[in-house]
Structure formats: C-alpha cells, structure tokens
C-alpha cells in the first residue's frame, strides 16, 4: 500500500494532475458510448461534450469577471464568430483543422485587443452595454451576411470530413463526433491547467488588485493597459476556441444561438460558481448548462414539466447570491473548515493540530 500512499501524495501536490484525471474521466464517458462498446447509449457523450465546450467559455469569463473585474455581455457573439469562422473555412477551403484553430486563436487575440482598448475608456455597466452592442452587431452580421454565414437558416458543415493533412485522414462519411470529443477533452484539460496557472500567479494577483481598486493597483505598478488587454484576450481566445469546437462537434451554427441569453447564462455560471476556485466555476457551469441535460431530464417529474427546470435555475441563483455571495465554492470551503474544526474537537485529547488556512 506504500505506492498507493505516495501516489495519493503526488496527486495532491500537483494540481494539474487533478485536471488530467478529470479529463480522463470525461473521456471515459465517450469510450463507453462508442458504437462498438455500447455500455452507454451513443447519445450519452453529448452532455459532457456540450459541458466542456461551455466550460471553456465560462473559464475565460471567470478570468475576466472574477479576476480582472470587468463585466462583458458580448461573450455569445464572440463564440458565434468562432463557429462561423470555423464553419466557413471548413466548408469552403481545405485548410487542416489545426490551422483553423490557430486562425481562430489569432482572431481572438485581435478581438480581445480591440475590446480591451474600449475597456480602458469605458467601465462597469457601460462596458457591459458596449460589449452587448458589439455582440448584437455580430449577430446581425451573421443573419444578413448570407454568403459567409448562410443567413437565418444557419451554416452547416454536415458530411464534411476535414483532411488532417495526411497525418490520420478519417475517410469521408466517418462520424466525427467521437474524434472531436477527444480533441475537446485535450483542449479542455490544457485550458483548465493554463487558467489555473494564470490565477495562481503574479498575474492573477495583479488582476485581483486591479479589480479591487484601480488606483491602488496602478500605484503598485500594475499597468491597467497590459492586464485589461490580457484579460480580454484570454476571454476572447477561449470563446473562439469554444466556437471552433462547437462547430466541429455540432457541424451547425445558427445566429439565434448567440443571443444575450447565452451571455447571461455564462455570467450566471460564474456568479453561482464563485470566484475562489476553478472547481467552483466548473460546478457553476454544470448547474447552469448541463444540470437539465444530464440529470433533470432523466427524472420523470421534469420530463412532464420542462418549464420547472428554468424555475429551479432561477431559484438556485437567488439562493446562492443571497446566502453565499462567494458562490458555491464558498459553501464548500466553509463546510470543509467546519469538518476540520469538528475533527479538531474530536482529536483535542490527542496531539493538537493547527487549521491550515492555505
């Protein structure tokens, strides 16, 4: 049992191992649902697949709102742009997917810099309104720029099998979804690790200082220009990556999907999740986006009354904001402290142990 103990120690000491393990568990969902395996129904992987794509967006928004303290309601438009960019390149050109991904990332950086510069002049609610406007402009473009986007009926890439430039061509007519699922897992794990690294770093601290007080942060040597641009670039790049994966996974993008509703849900996921840990954020994303898909829609009561799902989401949000302004992660943290205190009380006759706040 010694190796098991040292294994546990290794897992505990390296946070990125947690994310890789989480990725492995997620990929199991697809492995079991592969047509040849058949342990789970083939459609099962759709839930986790959607969850991962959304979680990427939410993680980007978490950096923006939770750390840099900037509110944006343009998230949906940026994701939409990613899907259309991917869809267009996929259907009209024979550029391999990884190059498309890089193009999307570059476009995200450009977009982030533009919005970041806007954020230097305009703050708070007004920034949210400006980004909302930007997003709505994008949606109007998606609807009307028919040659590029397919207009109101949407853009689809059904049946197009991208060439992987000879590396491992899949052959036409292959069901792409399992492959895209595994690609999503890999990208999701990388993004979780990068986000974790960023928030547990001098940059994360500088961003928190900026959120707390701009003038104090500037006096400490934090350049607003640099860190605001960075925060927006992170968000838009994540949005574009999510858009890329979405287009790949669903092979369909409709302008109506990229409305304010999605942006608000992403905001809700960050608020419900709380700003103190990545796991809280993922939980928030799960509650807002996947709870009804994966859990509630399997319960008979909710199948008969689908509208109550929205009710539950709203209720949950009110409860969290009222009682746990720090989000669900605060609730978990407090429970942990309580358990530790309780254990301490039990152990008091033995050797006393200090509560570790770190």
């Amino acid at each position, binding site marked *: 049992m010694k190796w098991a103990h040292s294994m546990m120690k290794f897992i505990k000491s390296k946070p990125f191992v947690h994310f890789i393990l989480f990725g492995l568990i997620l990929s199991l969902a697809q492995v079991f649902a592969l047509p040849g395996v058949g342990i789970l129904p083939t459609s099962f992987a759709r839930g986790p697949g959607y969850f991962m794509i959304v979680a990427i967006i939410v993680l980007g928004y978490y950096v923006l709102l939770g750390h840099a303290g900037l509110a944006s309601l343009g998230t949906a438009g940026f994701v939409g742009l990613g899907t259309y960019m991917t869809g267009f390149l996929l259907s009209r050109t024979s550029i391999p997917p990884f190059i498309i991904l890089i193009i999307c990332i570059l476009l995200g950086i450009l977009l982030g*810099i533009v919005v970041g510069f806007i954020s230097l002049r305009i703050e708070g609610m007004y920034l949210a309104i400006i980004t909302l406007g930007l997003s709505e402009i994008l949606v109007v473009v998606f609807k009307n720029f028919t040659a590029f986007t397919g207009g109101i009926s949407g853009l689809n890439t059904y049946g197009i099998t991208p060439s992987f430039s000879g590396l491992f061509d899949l052959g036409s007519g292959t069901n792409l979804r399992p492959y895209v699922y595994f690609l999503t897992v890999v990208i999701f794990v990388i993004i979780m690790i990068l986000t974790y690294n960023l928030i547990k*770093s001098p940059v*994360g601290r500088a961003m928190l200082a900026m959120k*707390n007080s701009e003038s*104090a942060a*500037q006096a400490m*040597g934090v350049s607003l220009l640099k860190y605001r641009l960075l925060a927006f670039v992170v968000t838009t790049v994540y949005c574009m990556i999510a858009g890329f994966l979405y287009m790949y996974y669903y092979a369909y993008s409709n302008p109506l999907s990229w409305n304010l509703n999605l942006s608000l849900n992403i905001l809700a996921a960050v608020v419900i999740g709380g700003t103190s840990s990545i796991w809280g954020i993922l939980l928030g994303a799960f509650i807002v986006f996947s709870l009804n898909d994966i859990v509630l829609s399997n319960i008979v009561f909710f199948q008969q009354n689908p509208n109550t799902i929205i009710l539950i989401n709203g209720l949950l949000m009110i409860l969290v904001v009222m009682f746990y302004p720090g989000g669900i992660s605060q609730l978990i943290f407090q429970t942990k402290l309580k358990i530790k205190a309780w254990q301490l009380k039990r152990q008091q006759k033995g050797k006393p142990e200090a509560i570790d*706040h*770190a």
Partner: protein
Amino acid sequence: MLEKIKQMLKVNASKTPQHIHVDLDEDIILDLNHLSMRFGGLIAVNDLSIQVRRGEIFGLIGPNGAGKTTVFNCITQFYKPTSGDAYFRGKNGNTIRLNDVKVHDVIKHGIIRTFQNVELVWELTVLQNLMVANTTKYHHIITRSFLHTPKMFQENQAIAAKALGILESLGLAIYKDVSPYGLPYGIRKKIELARTLMADPELIILDEPAAGLNDKETDELAETIKKIRDEYQTTIFLVEHDMPLVMGISDTVGAINFGKLIAVGTPKQIQENEAVRLAYLGSD
C-alpha cells in the same frame, strides 16, 4: 498593430513640451517647481514649490480642501499637473521629471504611495497582498505565469521571502496567511505600510495615515513610520490632519491653503506662524 499603438502613444507623449534638463542637489529628493493643477475653473494647487530633503519626514498640513491630496496625485501622476514640474532624484544620482513618467511606472523609480482609505485585496492573503507591490519585478510575467515555469517559482519564492522579512520586522508575521478582511483597522494600515516597503522605496508618500485610528493606534503608527524611515533609509512625505502626529514625527512641516504654500519650517516654527494660525482659525 502593437507597434502602431506604441507609436501612437509616443506621439502623444512627445506633445508635452520638452523641459530643460535639471539636476537636483544631492540632498534634495523631491522638488516641486511652480506646480499648478486646475480642474476647470477651480485651482486646486496654485504655483506650489516645495523641496523635500533626503531622509527626512516631511509633513504637509492644511485645512480641508486645501489641495494636499491633489499635490500627492500630481507627484504620483494620477493627475498630470496643468503646469509646473515635479523632479525626483534617485539614489543613482539621476534626476527625472516625474511629469513624463506613466502612473504605473512611478513605483519603478522608488516612489510609492498609500491611500486615505486602506486599499488591500480581500481575496488575497496578507503575504500575497505585499507581493502585489512587486509585480514589476517579475520577468516575462505573462508567459511564465501561464506555464508556471520553475523560474517563476524561484522569483515567487524570493519575493515571498522578502515580504515575510518585512512583515516580521513590523511584527505582522502572524497575519501572513489570513485575508486582511476582518483585521483591525490599525493592523490594516500597518500592512499597507509594509506593502510600500516591498518596492524598495526611496520616497514613501502617505495620504492621511492616521485617519480613522484611535489614540493608541496613532502612537503605534508614529513609531512604525519612524522605524521605517530609520531602518529602510527612506524619505517620507505625508499629509495628515492629526496635529500631534505631524508635529511629533516630522522634521519639516509645510502648510498650504487654497493650493498655495503659506509656510515651511520646523514643527515649532509652523506652530508659531501667524499665517498658519489664520488659515486654520480664521481672522476675527
């Protein structure tokens, strides 16, 4: 694109008139030269000239609305002065014109300030709060932060050790791992003072350090300020309303009213000065 933006910024900077190069005397650290700041029709600082000597505690006093905080904001570049210059001579002997420095670069020259209301980050521990003041000391901060390279951990460790040393020397080490949220106000003020020391400051600018403190805490603060000046060989420039504190610790006191300097001298001279008395009590 970035190059273009940089060029644009450069063009903006070069619009400000170039001034003749000034060299300050060795014992002068800060020289305000006919500094004025107007907000529309309001003249907050009016043709103010002050010299602060290296190693002294300089107290700036004045009735409410006299423009004291505006002077600080002009030095630390939160406001760009309407006219006049602020010169600073660093330990390396170079004199720089602060008007040309960006607000977040002021700290790089060894000038750091505090604020009237304590500005600490609740989400970070006290130790991490101190480390924020060293953000500019990291190299390749963005890439290394994303990748968590060993180099970043090395730098992190060095900076954390420095922060811990400062906390210990001010007797704050027991608070290092807790959030400043919920700590007594006096302690938070001290933490803010500790944070200024992270920047290896040559000039510390304190904006009403004793505001909101009780008598005992004020006395402790006075001790801490003196200790910082002596142990870290810095110069301290403070604005304060608490007269016993200013008169007790300052080497030189300057009094301003309606943005104009009315007197400079030792605390005793200021206390006996007729113009200062008039400014505070009014004439009959």
